[in-house]
Each structure stands twice: as structure tokens, then as C-alpha cells.
């Protein structure tokens, strides 16, 4: 009996010793993070709607790694060190990216050696300046300026401006990301330096005494809306 116990212990020890062999790659540790910015100011987008793609060449089959930008325009990816190229696919985002002569999106070369912060400079069609949210009696009001950034041949008009409220910090036009919306057609804007929108917050179940709000601009002919930062508002 004693001998058998010894065998079992020996087996277990051997087993542990053998399985402790290194059998895998180390997980990636270099973090690439950044934001989409215009002259240093971040650009707000809709959650999970504006993607970016990272390509790494030299491993045979080429396919994108990638994800999408967060609401505040930030992104992050944990990667192995190496050479990467980043693009934002065509037709994505309320801004213009750099394009090659043929119209394909130009890539940003990234040489990743350890963690790195990389802000992606883009040219938005508009910038939402100085959004001021105020609440009184269950009504949320915002006043802001819409500054036209692209004024050359690629300029586009505002289709609608919208104020969205939601229970959670995810706020957009998607039907599960707002509880109240008010829209104003671009043609109804008399002074882009002073746009004001008001919406009444509906009853929230279970009740909470705050909402999250932000402003979105739909630009004519561009699918993704441009957003202000999310603001938490006490009702």
C-alpha cells in the first residue's frame, strides 16, 4: 500500500514536471491606443459603428485585425511587437481620412515596439463646439455651435441635428441607445453658431434621477453621425 502511494505521488510529480514545459507563446503585451482627433480635439462617434483595421504582412494570408472606435473616438488594441498598417475603411466615420490617388484609404504605418499612443488625425466635416447641457423640470436643453471644417469641394451640408438621451452612457440614434430624441432639420438651422434643442426626458423604470445626453449631427450623404462628448445630467 505504501509503495502504491509512492508510485502515485511520483506519477503526479512527474506529470506536473512535464506539463510545466512552456507550451505556448507569451500573450501580447504591447498596447496600441489612441483617438481620432482633429487638431488635438477628439471626435465623438457612435458606439461600435466606426471600424478601423490593422494589417500585418509577412505571414501568408492577409486579413484585418480590428475593432471599432469607442464613443469618445478612442481605440486600443493589445498586440505583438511588429510592423502594422492601420486604415479606416472607406465610407466610415463622419470625417475624411487621407486617401490615395485611386480613392483607396491611405494607411498609417506603425512600428510597434512596446506600448504606444497614436492619435489619428482626420478632417471632420463639422466640429461640435461648446455644447452646454442644462436640465430643468425634466427637460434637457442643449446649446452648441456647429463649425464647418471642410469648406472645399468636399463640403457637405447638415441633414439633421439631434439631441439624444439615454439611461446608460451609450447614447446614439440606434433604437436601443436612446430613450428620447429630438431632431431639427439642417434647413431649419438659422444660425449654426447658436443651435438649441430641447427634449423632455420620459419616465425611466427603474427610476433614476439622471440621464446621459449628447448631440449628434447627421451630415448629408454620410452615414455615421458626428457626436459631442457624452454628458451626465442630473434631472
Amino acid at each position, binding site marked *: 500500500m505504501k509503495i502504491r502511494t509512492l508510485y502515485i505521488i511520483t506519477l503526479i510529480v512527474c506529470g506536473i514536471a512535464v506539463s510545466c514545459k512552456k507550451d505556448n507563446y507569451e500573450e501580447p503585451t504591447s498596447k496600441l491606443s489612441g483617438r481620432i482627433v482633429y487638431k488635438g480635439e477628439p471626435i465623438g462617434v457612435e458606439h461600435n459603428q466606426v471600424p478601423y483595421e490593422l494589417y500585418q504582412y509577412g505571414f501568408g494570408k492577409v*486579413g484585418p485585425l480590428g475593432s471599432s472606435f469607442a464613443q469618445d473616438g478612442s481605440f486600443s488594441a493589445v498586440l505583438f511587437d511588429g510592423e502594422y498598417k492601420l486604415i479606416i475603411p472607406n465610407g466610415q466615420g463622419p470625417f475624411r481620412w487621407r486617401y490615395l490617388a485611386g480613392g483607396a484609404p491611405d494607411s498609417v504605418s506603425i512600428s510597434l515596439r512596446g506600448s504606444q499612443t497614436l492619435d489619428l488625425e482626420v478632417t471632420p466635416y463639422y466640429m461640435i463646439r461648446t455644447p452646454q447641457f442644462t436640465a430643468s423640470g425634466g427637460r434637457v436643453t442643449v446649446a452648441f455651435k456647429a463649425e464647418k471644417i471642410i469648406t472645399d469641394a468636399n463640403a457637405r451640408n447638415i441633414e439633421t441635428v439631434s439631441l439624444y438621451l439615454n439611461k446608460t452612457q451609450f447614447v446614439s440614434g440606434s*433604437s436601443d441607445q436612446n430613450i428620447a430624441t429630438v431632431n431639427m432639420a439642417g434647413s431649419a438651422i438659422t444660425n449654426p453658431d447658436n443651435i438649441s434643442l430641447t427634449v423632455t426626458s420620459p419616465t425611466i423604470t427603474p427610476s433614476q434621477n439622471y440621464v446621459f445626453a449628447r448631440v449628434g449631427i447627421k451630415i448629408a*450623404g454620410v452615414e455615421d453621425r458626428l457626436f459631442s462628448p457624452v454628458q451626465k445630467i442630473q434631472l
Partner: protein
Amino acid sequence: MKKILSIAIFTTLLGMAGCKKDSEFLDIPPIQVLPNDVAFSDPALVLSILGDLYNRQLDFSSLDNGWRSFADFSESFASENGSYFLVQRTGWGYGEWGVDWVQSYTYVRELNLFLERINTSTALTDAEKSRFTAEGKFLRANFYFEMVKRMGGVPLITSSMQYDPAKGDLASLQVARSKESEVYDFVISEAEAIKNQLPADVNQKSRASKAAALAMEVRAALYAASIAKYGVNTPQVSLPGGEVGIPVSMAAGYYTKALTAAREIISGGAGAYQLYNVLPDKADNFAAIFLDKGSVNQESILIEDFRAAGGRVHNFTVNNQPYSISDEGGDAGRLNPSLNFVQSFEKLDNTFAPLATRDAAGNPIFYNDQVDIFAGRDARLAGTVLTPNSLFKGKRVDIWAGYQLADGTVVTSDEAAQLKALPGSNTVVQVVGKDGPVNIEFRSQSGFYIRKWLDPTIGSGRRGRGSDVAFIRYRYAEVLLNAAEAAFELGQAAVAAGYMNQVRARAGLTIPLTPAQITFDRIVHERRVELAFEGHDLFDKKRWRIAHIVWDGVPTSLADLTSNIGRATKRNTQPWALWPYKYHNPGNPNHGKWLFREVRPAVVTGSNRFQLGNYYSEINNNVRAANPKIVRQPNQ
């Protein structure tokens, strides 16, 4: 000595048997697989190969794809626990509606091989060769049409390709995407080339006929034309190489082609096709188009046929029959047409109106019978949808949501057919219909069941038997509507009205539309009600470039629902329901009468959002990595 002799004989025999040449020894003709020269030596064998190729055609909605291929797009509500995602999601993935690339091009390759082997076969007569070739080409063209509808321009492979390992030359096998217009041109030119090799026979329904080729040409030319014309509204949905998007200058040419090809069918050049007009009751007549496979049905042009007790059946009736009339206890009622769809059927005076549930003052309107609220409408409503208290298999569909009392409270149950006592009484009575509407799967949750394709044959609702109703891929009424649309777009409103009025008269709308009344909205509406649940909805909305407006992701409010009926760009993001209640107020003149409420079913939490990237289904990264010449879709 004897022993030696027998050993010698044995050895000799063994030697003789073993002395077969090695090559001969291994070269045994297979007994399970027919070699090509044998397979293509007999027309019956060729036909069986062709049968397999027919079976592998692609349909969007189809009876053997399952009932769910008819659901979605807010035209219906899916009453099945595993399918609520259809109304709970907030949009579609870019890969949705795409094709399996490998499977598709395997099929294309086998079609190409079929055509090449037919061509080299020596045993077939020229007449046989000609027809088989035409059918193979028809299937190939129709399949490319199905691909281009989903993905835009795809690589056009029209001969079999062979990889030669000695050369190792992959690049010659990597074919770039053709222009979208080139694929449509291919479909149109193939149809023109083969139409006279196919029989012009109205009874030839399950194999390609001249009319099938022409009907395919009409539809393809119309799709190409509308993409060219309406593509200008979404300039972002295009690629610089033309793989997606067709220049607007080509629109008129395509419309003309569509109209010409349609006229060839309408004039009888492909056989004596006509609208099905057999039964006296217009609604029954409309439902029978989809059930009648006999020679009296001269409307269906190409069908995917089934045969009960022949091993080829489908479960559409099993899955969608009314719960209380089900042949298969507990298996029923999945596809429930929505109120959005039901109310879009116009009134007999050619006007649109929501179903009248309340009068101008906001008081409920009472009806003696549940079917009265639907009275005086397009007969196709009753032909497509089983409304509450309508007949199926000789029984009434039992749909009502409860009793409404005088004070407005409702006595109901969350369990179908449950018994409860009404106030002021001790006897228990049934307080909700056996078929719903309650929020339980397989009961109608929208207040309606589907009638189109639903087989009234005894036993068709049993899983063991199944239904053999055929799926109609092309039918004459669609050809007429296609012709009407093409004529309208070419500025020939009178011609358009003529074609459209034929279809409408068959449906019981006897007041003809004047040429001035033919508008884009009318065309869109007519296709919606005539061709509902036949797999047209998505592709129509795509080619007119209104999908992103109709399915804009904003929840459909009651005001949205009941306004602008008949407008092409009306929001349609969530399915609504119409729940009937019985009024319980003894002594009141309305006691026992019916009133109705519009309800958004409780599980409808999402709303359809069609993004620009949804116009053309994604070609996935694996395909693009394997063939770098394939450009990606726009807006993805």
C-alpha cells in the same frame, strides 16, 4: 505423387491468377460512380445529373429553405422562441444574405463541367444536346443573377478551370470581380441566346422553358435598370471599378430590354400564359395560384416542385398552420403577417386607409363579426393572410385577445384558450382565442396567420407527410408588374396602367387606375401586396435604393404606422399587431361585438436598421485573402 500433382496444379493456377498485369489489376471500373462517358451516354442519366443541378439553385425565400426565409423585414412577426432575434436586433450584419463563396463557385464549376461534357458527348442527339445545354445555361445565368442581387459584380467564370501543379500558376485562376452591369448583361444575353432552344410550353413548369428564360431576362433587366436609375440617390453605394453601381446612362436601355422581353411573353410568343382566374371567389382564387399545380394554372412559369410520398416535401404548412387546426399538435403558427402589411391592402375604391379601430372622437368602433373590419379591401388580403375568424380547412381561426369590460379593463389570460369567470357570473368561459393572440410561441402574436403557400390538403400539416405545394420562382403576374414598371419608367404610363390593371382586376379591384394615377409609390405598393412572401421584398427595396429609408432604425410609432400608407418610403422598422377584443357589457347595444387595438408585441424591442453597407453583402476576408483581386464592398 498425387500430392505433387495437386500442388503443381494449385501453383499453376495461382500463378495464372497472379500473373495479371499490375496496371490491369488496379484498374477496376468503379461500381458506385459513373464515369463521364457513361453518364453522358443516355438522356435519362443526363437528366438525373441536371435534376441535381436544378435542386442546387439558390432562392432567397423558399419552401425548402425553411419558414424563416419568409420572415423578417417587419412584414411579419416570427412566433417562435428561437426566432425572436428577428425583432430584437437593431440591424443586420454586413454578411447577412450573402452566399457561401466556395459552395457557390463549386456549383458554377459543376455547371460549367456539365455544359462542356454535354458538348463533347457523342451519344446524344443534337436536339437533346441543344435542350440540355440551354437548361444548363439557364441555371448558370439564373444563379449568377441570384449572386449579383446579393453581392453586386462577381467573378464571371464561364468555363471550368484547372489548376496545374507543375506550373504552380495561381494568378491565372484568380479572377477579378466583373462590373455589376456586366453580370446583368451576361444574364440578359444568355437568356436571349437560349430562349429558342427551350420549349415554348405552358405546361413545362419544373424545367426551364422559353418563358422562364424570358422572365429571368425581364427581371434581370429591370433590376439593372433600377439600380442605374436610383443609384444616383446613394452615390456612396458604388465602387470606382463599377463592381457595384451602374451608370445612370444605362437605365433607359435596360428598361427597354425588360419591356421588350416582357412583351414577348405577354404576346404569347412563349406559350399561352395568362393570369390564374379559375375560382369565383377572388381571395380563394388568389390563394389557389400557389396551390394549383395542374395544367389549369397557366400563371406559374417556373416552379420548384415537390411530391408527397415521393421523398421531396417541405414543412412550410407544418410550421405555419393555425395552432387550433394543426395536424401536428403543438407544431404550428410561426409566420404571422404584421399589421403593417395587412393594412397596406387598399380599399376597393383604390384608396389607402388604416384599419378603422377608432372613430374621429377616439372611441372604439364595434364590429358584429371580426372579419368585418377587413371588409371592402383588396381580395389579395384574404388570399394572403388568415384574418381572425377566417376559414382554413373548413374551420374558423380562433384569434381574439380577451373580453373588454365597460370600464375599459380587459379580462384575458396569458395562456391560450384558458377559462375564467367574467364579472357578475360564476360560470367559467373561454377568455382568449385558441390561436392567440397571446405572447406564446406558435400562437398568432400579430393577430394573423399566413395563407399564401399554406396547404389545405389533409395531412399536409403532419411532419411525417409534409406538404408538396410548389414554390413559384417566376409567374406571369410578376412579368406583368415588371412590364408595368419598365413602361412607367420609360414614360409610357398608359401602357403601365394597362398591365397593372390586369393584375388588379384579377384581384377584384375593378376600378381601373388611370395612367395619371400610376406613380412610383403605386408600383412599389402593387409589388408589395401581389408578391408578398415570395422573396422579392428585400431585393426590390435594395434596387430602388430605399431600403435605408424604409428601415432607418427608428422605432415605428403608432402614428408612423397609420399614416402615409401606400407611400414607398414609409418607415417599416417594427412589426405591429392587431388584437381583437370582445365587448362585454350586458344591456349595452354593443355587447358581444368586436373592437380592435393596435399593439406592438411585447417581444419587439429592436428595430430594423439597414445601413449603406448592407446594400451589398460582404465578401469575407478569407475570400479576399485567397484572391487579392477581389475588391471589397463599399461602406463596410
